[in-house]
């Protein structure tokens, strides 16, 4: 199992590909932005989740946990170098 989907609301532009590819887990709100099921994605639906993640033009979707169980960071806004 690969865990829950991680979503970056700032990166998202409402293209809608994720909801189209993974309607079992993602639906659109009244303005075309995705509402995600927060639970971990069951093994049987993993393939659709991968397709949704890969299709997002803004890379707004990712796994909250990578397959080896380590937590991966989502995209944050660019920061000035120290």
């Amino acid at each position, binding site marked *: 199992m690969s865990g829950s989907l991680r979503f*970056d*609301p*700032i990166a*998202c*532009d*409402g293209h809608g590909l994720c909801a189209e590819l993974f309607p079992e887990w993602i639906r659109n*709100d*009244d*303005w*075309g*932005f995705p*509402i995600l099921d927060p639970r971990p994605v069951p093994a049987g639906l993993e393939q659709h989740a991968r397709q949704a993640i890969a299709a997002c033009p803004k890379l707004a979707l990712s796994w909250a946990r990578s397959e080896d169980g380590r937590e991966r*960071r*989502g*995209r*944050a*806004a*660019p*920061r*000035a*170098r*120290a």
Partner: protein
Amino acid sequence: MSPAAAQTRREAPPVAPPRFPRLLEGVRPDGRALTLAEHLELHGAAGGGGRSGRGAELAEVLVASGLLGRGGGGFPAGRKLQAVASRRGRAVVVANGTEGEPASGKDKALLRTKPHLVLDGVALAAAAIGAEEAIVAVGRSAERERAVLERGLAERRERRLDAVRIRVESAPDRFVAGEETALLQWLNGGPAKPTTVPPRPFERGVGGRPTLVQNVETLAHVALIARFGAAWFRELGTPEEPGTALVTLGGAVRQPGVYEIPLGTTLDRLVATAGGATGPIRAFLVGGYFGAWIDGRDGGVRLLDAELGERGAALGARAVVALPEGACGLVEAARVARYLAGESAGQCGPCRFGLAAIADAMAVLVTAKASPAVVERVERWLGQVAGRGACRHPDGAARFVGSTLEVFGDEVELHLRGRCSGRIHGNLLPLQSAQPDGWR
């Protein structure tokens, strides 16, 4: 006395702990800021802010005091300090005095009258986390407050009081500019807009360094707790929410302004302190524009997050507005909803489009003969915006509008029939009138 003699540090007798008020003790009737000399005479020396290195003692006494952040987040101050102190790397202190909430004036009042309490807190926190750099952030329009701070810093530098370098920065006058990650992004050269976390400020903040962001009032309490201890701090307030807090009270009271109250004071008591109401109160807006309404007959409610939470409200920005009978809460709230929509950073779809849609629907409800479908749409959208942005702006706006529809249900009914009970007009909930500032 010669200037040289005046500058010599004398052994001053210890100062007795203040009973009440605490932060506002010694505030001058003419509102002029206390000079450094006056401040030290009144409160005594802070101790520990000058030369000491990482101080576990300050963190421990803060944890024991139970001090919670006074900026709206309510996070335990001691734990926050410990989190930053435990990171590797040269830390930074950011004192947040931006106060973007239009109904709130407590931070500005504190900075104008008792700047050295805040600066003591900054220096003490900096010493405790090993920070060499500190920034006090105010809003760009807070020119008077900035001038007072600069004068205070000059006084302290002359006395070589603080080991930390403190500077003042003036951030854009936007509602969300004071949100922790927004302020940090701005300090780092970006727009004053919230960012996604992780990393959190205590991990990577100003220049990528561990950063302690605290509200200026919180730091003022730190300055007194460092002097008088945790047990003293707990003498007022409740065990879960100890101490005193500054509250801005506006609306239909005789003396609107900033007041210091022991936490747990009732709304009625707060109003009495402000000279009483000017007439019957229809409802209290508690927590500013992210807050909720409390019915005017429920003035016995205590100002505590625990008690307010049971009514869907919170202390939030600690701004209370008393709406009089005769004013229409719906009309006032629709103005605020429009303002909140305009203050969206515009980064997240549900906030950017949802708050605008809610404001449009509220405008229809208020100004035209709306059908019940308009109210249904608002309710639906309130559920769709909350929790779906990078920050709590849509959540706060949704709480405010949702509470409005609930507490002013009678007004909603009237407006659906094309009528309004409002006799008093004129923008009782304050909003900034000027053109909105930029994001840089």
